[in-house]
């Protein structure tokens, strides 16, 4: 067995659409170690962890636990081998107590009766052994987020987990809760547990972890002792550009500000403040890019701009009108186009036809209406033109959109949004998970729209895309703008990485320039 308690050897996983999520990944962790796995969104971390937890199986490669090769065919098997997973989204039943949640599935029973006393004793025992201080009789719905997470960890520990995988655990915690969590994790390490800590918060990785493995684009790019590398080093390993074709771009000719945010403060659905005073503007005829690791407030900024979120404070104006006073329909009528991040749940109605999906949001336009009825000929003409123009590969416009491939579905979404009368186009991860051809055409479109005078706000995890397309670039970290680049000629991805991962931060005067009118 030696030093390696857990080994992943040459793990390769390819998804149905040909995307290689994990490419010959090698990883090992020893007993009593806290090992961080760092990588950007889409680097392949979650795929790797899914295989480690038995939710998916590798196409190639082996997993070796305690010296024995295992086939983790289901989460149950993984649990049997001592692997426990703490998900980002809690798997708890709110109306049950802590003890009930922790022992669900392995309930102590005397005959038919659920032995509540023993469940509480079991929970208390594990809780005290690792210094968790959780009340077994409390109801989960009354607990704070930090305590809920402890319950999740207890769930794994009570089942005898020796290897704990934590997926972005501090994303939902306050600083104090994070400190507490780290105390506990250190205690667990001292008692011989192995902890795999998935995170991109480099400061935390530095303070908590022993070793770090960086994954980039499905491959491992290095395993190091945390003591040997600085945050800047890690950042450099994580962030890298793909060699890809650039879209040609003439200099921008920006006009008036179309979208203006000043000191925007916003809360998520749990009441946590996630946008902490963001100010920037987007003018017509320019593309403003927002870089940042997922979960740093970008989603809430987009929700606020597109009319999906209410509440919060600060100024938020679209063409001089207060966005919060406008309904989504009014925003769209005023010229807002939105390519959402989650196309399947928000961007399309899977069972409706391609034509109908392209018509959504535009059905009120006079050109598509003849008196009381929809003008089917006009609709057909336009949608056929868009299908051809945006190169949507399908059998016909009547086909239901859910049958198309991911890339083609996105093309339908983009076609719909970019052909509306657009003053402001908000694109959230527009080319994620899409083939090269579609990606290129969508990027060219965005530049074309910009040249025609639209204001474009581009949120993307693809740095190459941001550096290529943006005229001005912002970096978001921890709900704030930590960097602003009015001129992209000198910016490197390395530098961007430092800001994205919180290694560096610009001053208020430097970022203030983002707000131009």
């Amino acid at each position, binding site marked *: 067995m030696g030093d390696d308690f857990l080994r992943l050897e040459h793990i390769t996983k390819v998804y149905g659409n040909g995307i290689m999520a994990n490419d010959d990944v090698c990883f090992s962790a020893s007993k009593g170690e806290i090992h961080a796995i760092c990588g950007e969104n889409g680097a392949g971390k979650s795929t790797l962890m899914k295989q480690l937890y038995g939710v998916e199986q590798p196409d190639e490669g082996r997993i070796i636990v305690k010296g024995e090769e295992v086939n983790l065919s289901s989460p149950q098997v993984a649990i049997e081998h001592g692997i426990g997973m703490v998900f980002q989204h809690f798997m708890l039943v709110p109306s049950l107590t802590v003890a009930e949640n922790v022992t669900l599935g392995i309930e102590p029973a005397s005959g038919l009766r659920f032995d509540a006393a023993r469940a509480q004793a079991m929970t208390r025992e594990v809780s005290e052994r690792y210094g968790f201080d959780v009340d077994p009789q409390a109801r989960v719905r009354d607990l704070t987020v930090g305590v809920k997470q402890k319950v999740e960890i207890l769930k794994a520990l009570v089942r005898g987990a020796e290897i704990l995988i934590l997926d972005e655990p501090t994303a939902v915690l306050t600083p104090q809760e994070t400190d507490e969590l780290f105390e506990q994790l250190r205690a667990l390490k001292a008692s011989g547990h192995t902890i795999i800590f998935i995170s991109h918060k480099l400061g935390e990785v530095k303070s908590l972890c022993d070793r770090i493995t960086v994954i980039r684009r499905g491959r491992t790019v290095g395993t190091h002792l945390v003591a040997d590398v600085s945050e800047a080093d890690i950042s450099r390993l994580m962030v890298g550009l793909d060699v890809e074709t650039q879209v040609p771009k003439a200099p921008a000719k920006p006009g008036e500000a179309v979208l203006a945010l000043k000191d925007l403060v916003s809360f998520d659905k749990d009441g946590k403040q996630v946008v902490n005073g963001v100010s920037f503007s987007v003018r017509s005829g320019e593309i403003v890019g927002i870089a940042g690791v997922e979960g740093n407030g970008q989603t809430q900024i987009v929700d606020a701009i597109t009319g*999906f979120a209410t509440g919060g404070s600060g100024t938020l104006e679209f063409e001089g009108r207060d966005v919060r006073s406008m*309904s*989504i*329909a*009014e*925003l*769209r*009528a005023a010229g807002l186009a*939105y390519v*959402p991040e989650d196309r399947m*749940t*928000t*961007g*399309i*109605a*899977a*069972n*409706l036809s391609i034509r*109908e999906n392209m*018509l*959504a*949001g535009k*059905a*009120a336009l006079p050109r*598509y*209406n003849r008196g*009381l*009825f*929809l003008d*089917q000929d006009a609709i057909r003409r336009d949608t056929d033109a868009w*299908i*051809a123009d945006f190169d949507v590969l*399908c*059998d*016909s416009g009547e*086909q*239901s959109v859910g*049958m198309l491939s991911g890339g083609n579905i996105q093309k339908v979404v983009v076609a719909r949004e970019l052909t509306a009368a657009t003053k402001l186009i908000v694109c959230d991860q527009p080319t994620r998970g899409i083939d090269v051809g579609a990606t290129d055409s969508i990027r060219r479109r965005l530049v074309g729209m910009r040249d025609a005078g639209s204001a474009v706000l581009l949120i993307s995890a693809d740095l190459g895309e941001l550096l290529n397309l943006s005229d001005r670039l912002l970096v978001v970290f921890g709900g704030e703008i930590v960097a602003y680049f009015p001129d992209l000629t000198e910016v490197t991805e390395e530098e961007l990485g430092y800001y994205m991962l919180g290694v560096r931060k610009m001053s208020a005067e430097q970022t203030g320039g983002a707000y131009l009118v």
Partner: protein
Amino acid sequence: MRTLSKDTSGLGAVSRRLGAISVQTRHEMLRMAVAVAIGLGVAVVLIALTAADPARALTYFVAAPFMGPSYFSHMIEVIIPLMMTGAAVSIMFATNQFNLGLEGAIYLGGLMAAVSGIYLMPDLPVLSPVFSILLGAAVGFAIIAIPALLQYKFKANIVVSTLMMNYVCLYVGLFLLFRVFKDPASSQHTYPIGPAAGLPVLIPGTKIHAGLILSVAIVILAYVLLYKTRLGFSLRMVGQNPNFARYAGLGVSGLALVAQLMGGAIGGMTGAVQMLGLYDRFQWTTLTGFGWDGVTMAIFARNNPKYLPFAAVFLAYFRTGAWVMSFKAGVQIDLVSVFEGVMVLFLMAEKFLSGTYRKMVFADADRKRKEREAAGEEVAA
């Protein structure tokens, strides 16, 4: 877009046309055929096991409408309420609202139409029935508005509230029937409606009344609404994906409310039409059951009004068969509920024949690949 090859003759053409329909639709057609087969199978087994003369009973069940003009006209008569409630439910289900409250709307719609025909407008030709039917629609609208608004404002569960509402309507209606409008000379009828208040019979010698025209019109209107107007498009979007509808700027709750109100109005009209077309006095002492029929109809028609006439003919055909069979061969008519229930179960089973579906998808992908290759060769050659 690719074009299909130009050979239009014979079986090749048929299979190519079949191939042009998506795999999804073909699988649904297959599922429908199997569901109908199973339903018929169950019915046949029950008849065979219980009828005194199974062969004779079966003949009536499957062929009755063609065995006599009165049977055929009975079928047409049955189609009328089926199409109307089917249209009402299709509209409501298009927004994914499981509103089961049509029974109450139909009952009170019928009652109010009768009252109108007796007291309010008994003898103006054409105007009387029209007025009464519109009154019935208004009543249905108001009845459904109650649970629909409760859902809109308070998110009260629409399934439960509409089920309860049906009984409230029934008992209020019974109160009105027995305590207010009852003809003292009878035990449970109202006075007769006025001479011009009823719906005229279209084909003399039958009971097929002018309500047929209205029901056809309603189905056409429902189809046009859902598939040809902006409002209908919005309703369908809400039903298919409320997130997406909201993202597109639609007011989801408001549209759900509108759909239910429309359904309620049509429900009220159905009651009115049945009352004025078939009876000269109001005498219903139980809920009619047409509301549930509407659900069955909508399921068979996949919520698309353009299939409602087919679903109506299908259901009415076998209901007539069962009806004739019941008095000619002594087999209870209730068999038809079993028949319909079994078909509903298998029609809506998504996972039913899922193995076959997968095979169809692969076969289809193979075929398309071969077509593309063949076309490529043609171009190259």
